[in-house]
């Protein structure tokens, strides 16, 4: 996946616990854990807004785009 979730990094930088953030956003800790692991299909603007509000950061601090290498997942092209 080209979109990387860096929420765990921001949580560590702000010294915030996942439980506190989950309570502020209004989602379960398990869903927050899935989000941190990047195992979700999407993030609502509402959730993103609440995260940025609580962690005092920008969406770009949480999400990053890292293109997959061209040959990722396929064999040697030769």
């Amino acid at each position, binding site marked *: 996946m080209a979109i990387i979730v860096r929420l765990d990094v921001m949580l560590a930088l702000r010294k915030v616990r996942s439980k506190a953030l989950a309570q502020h956003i209004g*989602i379960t800790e398990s*869903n*927050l854990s*899935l*989000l941190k692991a990047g195992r*979700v*299909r*999407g*993030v*609502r603007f509402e*959730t993103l807004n609440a995260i940025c509000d609580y962690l005092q950061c920008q969406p770009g601090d949480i999400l990053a785009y890292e293109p997959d290498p061209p040959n990722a997942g396929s064999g040697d092209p030769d």
Partner: protein
Amino acid sequence: MTDKAIGIVRFARRLRFAVWSLALLLTLAAAAAILLNFSGKPAGAFVDSHGLPRAWAARVAATSVGLVLAGLFELGRMLRLVEADAAFSPPATRHLKRFAALLMAAVLVDVLAPTIIQLTLYSALALSLASSDMLLLLVSIVFFLISRLLDAAAVYQEDSRSIV
């Protein structure tokens, strides 16, 4: 669980009790009708014989009621899943499809069985189709459509759950 979801669960629970009550009433009424009508005693309940001998009419009525009861049983199981917040799960859709199929089968038995039996016994062809039969047939087809919609809704629910 949202207020709307709680309301749906309560409604499903009441409907399930209504379904079980209806199944019980139907069983008692059918048993009374078959036993009393065919023993020659006067009865409040009656079985439409469709011009068939009593034994055959009783068999048709029992089969039709049996299918409806099996359908109600499936509907009750589906409603139990709705109460457990699994309205869009594959088992719920399966139970609804079975309910629709059994309802349709009951109508078809009620309409076609007397015709087939008359044709066999008397070599006479007579098809009687009541508007209530047509309506039940239409309702069962609508239930099939609803079960397809539930299948589609399950996909949307899965999408929704994977978006935080």
